[in-house]
């Protein structure tokens, strides 16, 4: 009989228990996170040893070198800054529970807008060009973000799909301009290669009577990369301030938590949604401008480098705190660069770029997975009970 079978059952080996109202103390929560990180390092070491028989010490030395070593550090910093910029742009949208996964496209249209100015308005003074590029990028990105929000507000269109699809439109817009401007050449190359019009460096470069560049003393202030990183840090600080201390930031938080509460408090949900998506898209657009004017000086579909998607992970892991985002961005880009270095160094003995991606995957899985154990615990069957149940 059914009753009989039930009685012989043991208690389950383990079950998941919510931690309930009592939150885990901060040191334990961080303990779990650090533990997950160490476990990920261990697993990765094992994985690498299995694939290419490189011992863990050499392996991590290579990783560290690729991420922070001489000649590699700036690449990591710049990459992290770009990732951070996009994550910061996503912060207000995500805090509002508006799933903007169109950052990639918003960065691209920002880049296109900047490049169009760069390409067609070459007769303006350098400062004017740069400013015009920035403004147009911000407008383009803002509009690209606004459009899905309008449809969401008017017809409750699903913003996740909408923003995702907008990415592909943006990518093909980039392709369009790329082939338009490339003409019969084999590649587009840098725009304004000789005049440097629209390049951030044109702001401080000096030219002699013949139009040749005058050799300048190297300093931080005449370094495009420095300004790229510095501007992004400023944006990060401003966004933190905006979300935490302003009326608009407060409204975003309320709308994100509960639309009904927002209505109850007299906050216009649609207005906040439209405004916030303009801001989110605008910061992405600004990122596109920064990349085009200070990094690539040209356009390509890899301008955002997939960071529009990676930034989603960054924003989530940081719980939308822009300063935490900085740390997470560095971590992820360092991993990426370290893994790339592995693929570079051990590619000949079988460590492919795909293996590098596996490493990053293991790392992210454990870091994201550790959050589960901060909110839940696993209760195992007690020994004594097991005896009693048998």
């Amino acid at each position: 009989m059914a009753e009989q079978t039930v009685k012989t059952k043991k208690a389950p080996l383990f079950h998941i228990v919510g931690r309930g109202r009592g939150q885990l103390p901060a040191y334990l929560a961080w303990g779990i996170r650090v533990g997950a990180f160490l476990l990920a390092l261990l697993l990765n070491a094992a994985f690498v040893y299995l694939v290419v028989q490189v011992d863990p010490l050499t392996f991590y030395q290579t990783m560290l070198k690729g991420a922070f070593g001489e000649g590699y550090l700036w690449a990591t910093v710049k990459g992290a800054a770009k990732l951070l910029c996009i994550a910061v742009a996503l912060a207000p949208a995500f805090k509002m529970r508006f799933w903007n996964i169109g950052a990639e496209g918003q960065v691209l249209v920002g880049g296109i807008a900047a490049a169009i100015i760069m390409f067609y308005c070459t007769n303006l003074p350098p400062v004017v060009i740069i400013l015009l590029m920035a403004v147009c990028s911000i407008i383009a990105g803002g509009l690209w973000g606004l459009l899905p929000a309008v449809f969401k507000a008017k017809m409750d269109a699903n913003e996740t799909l909408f923003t995702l699809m907008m990415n592909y439109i943006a990518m093909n817009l980039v392709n369009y301009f790329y082939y338009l401007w490339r003409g019969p050449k084999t590649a587009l190359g840098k725009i304004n290669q000789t005049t440097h019009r629209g390049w951030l460096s044109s702001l401080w470069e000096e030219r002699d009577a013949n139009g040749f560049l005058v050799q300048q003393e190297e300093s931080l202030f005449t370094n495009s990369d420095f300004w790229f990183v510095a501007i992004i840090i400023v944006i990060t600080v401003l966004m933190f301030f905006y979300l935490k201390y302003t009326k608009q930031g407060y409204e975003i938080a309320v709308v994100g938590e509960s639309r009904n509460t927002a209505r109850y408090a007299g906050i216009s949900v649609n207005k906040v949604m439209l405004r916030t998506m303009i801001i989110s898209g605008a910061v992405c657009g600004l990122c596109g401008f920064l990349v085009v004017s200070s990094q690539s000086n040209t356009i390509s579909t890899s301008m955002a480098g997939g960071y529009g998607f990676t930034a989603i992970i960054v924003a989530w892991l940081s719980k939308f705190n822009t300063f935490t985002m900085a740390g997470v961005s560095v971590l992820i880009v360092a991993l990426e660069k370290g893994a790339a270095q592995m693929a570079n160094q051990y590619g000949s003995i079988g460590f492919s770029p795909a293996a590098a991606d596996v490493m990053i995957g293991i790392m992210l899985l454990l870091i994201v997975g550790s959050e589960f154990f901060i909110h839940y615990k696993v209760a195992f069957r007690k020994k004594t009970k097991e005896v009693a149940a048998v």
Partner: protein
Amino acid sequence: MDTQNKIAVSFRGVTKTFGSVYANRDVTMEIHKGEILSLLGENGSGKTTLMNMLSGIYCPDAGEIYLDGKQVTIRSPQDAHALGIGMIHQHFKLVDVFTAAENVLLGVKGREILNVAEATEKINTICRTYGFEIDPSMKVYDMTVSQKQTLEIVKALYRGANILILDEPTAVLTPQETDKLFSVLREMRKDGKTVIIITHKLHEVLAVSDRVAILRKGEYVDTVETATANEQILTELMVGQKVELNIERPAPENPVLRLQVEHLTVKGHEGETVLEDVSFDAYGGEILGIAGISGCGQKELLESIAGLQHVEAGSKVLYDAPDGTKEDLIGKDPKKIKELGVALSFVPEDRLGMGLVGGMGMVGNMQLRNYTMRKSILAEIKHSKELAEQIREELGVVTPSLNTPVRRLSGGNVQKVLVGREIASAPAVLMTAYAVRGLDIGASYTIYHLLNKQKAKGVAVIFVGEDLDVLVALCDRIMVLCDGKVNGIVDGRTATKEEIGYLMTNLKTEGGESNG
């Protein structure tokens, strides 16, 4: 029968924790065969958790459960069914688009092809035996709350339940429906079934049960024979101290007309009428109660006044300001209403989903009403901090810090934060919906006291309630809603529960007549 055979269920040292909170601690108690046992306790005393362990939803952290003297491990609701345990939850687990019979068959193991005819026959037999009235071919979405509950009970019996657990079964029923339920439960007892009802309503406990088991803060206190108990004794066992059970009702002092609702009509999403031609006045200095079975327009009524509901043309909500001016609130959103200087406070039914921001602390929730106070782009925070501190002190809100998300506070504390904030804005009209739902006795009385204080200040208090005992004890006038229409306004001092219960379910043919 020897004592061993009399015991249906026994808990031995059952403990269940959620994080660091003990939901149940070392509970040892017994439930007899063929009795109606009331499980009594305040909210958060662990009644439901204990029963969830019996019905396989939770697994105890420690302790054992014995059924008919044999130890059992109940790993899932399926196990519970197999052991003859059925639980009717507070929130029904029914599929709306299925018929009664289909819902009963859902999840029952058997042949691949459903034999609905056979099931229908069996359902009818069960109904005849215990006196249920249910049509097996009726769709769930056409059922009243009471019918859905009946269906849940039939479902449990169909699966062969010998032990039936009902979680707060009367919370959603009118007095008449409650009586009907109780007579069914008595029939089941006659048939030898064991019935456990989880409740915190004392008069029902006394009316229906044989014995009362009391839990307090997750611990088992005692079991008493109902025959020897009274409300005072049970309350003291439940709360752990002496409690004054009388609600004050001072006479209104020079009531002033404050709010005139005229011909208010609201239509739902599918064009169905939710409120029809509702007209009434609310006076400063009195508490106007609003009674009605749940979902017959109370929510829409309050939200219409607060500017959160789309209403039909012809509806009027006139606010009579203390300075003598009149303002129609219809067509204005909450922001506009506030800008007009209308002192309207609203404690909505959905506290964390509408009145408060669950993820924010007390300070953040105070900001909800104040954040625009500063002229600059910055959100106001200083005043909100002071207000949060003040409410914490005056109302005794228990919270680890002013920034602890209010979602993590207990129901009573959440309500204190909300009511405290709404009262702090010195309202002329204070609307509350189910202000004490889910609150323990102490917290409930704090709220009644606060409402009375507002009444004494000359505030027009509108109190939407569900507990008729409280309505007739607290309110000066009670308006009864039935199917979205005003079905009478009665004097709270003379009206009886039965009278109100009748008005709640039997619509007068010629419509509501105001006699208040």
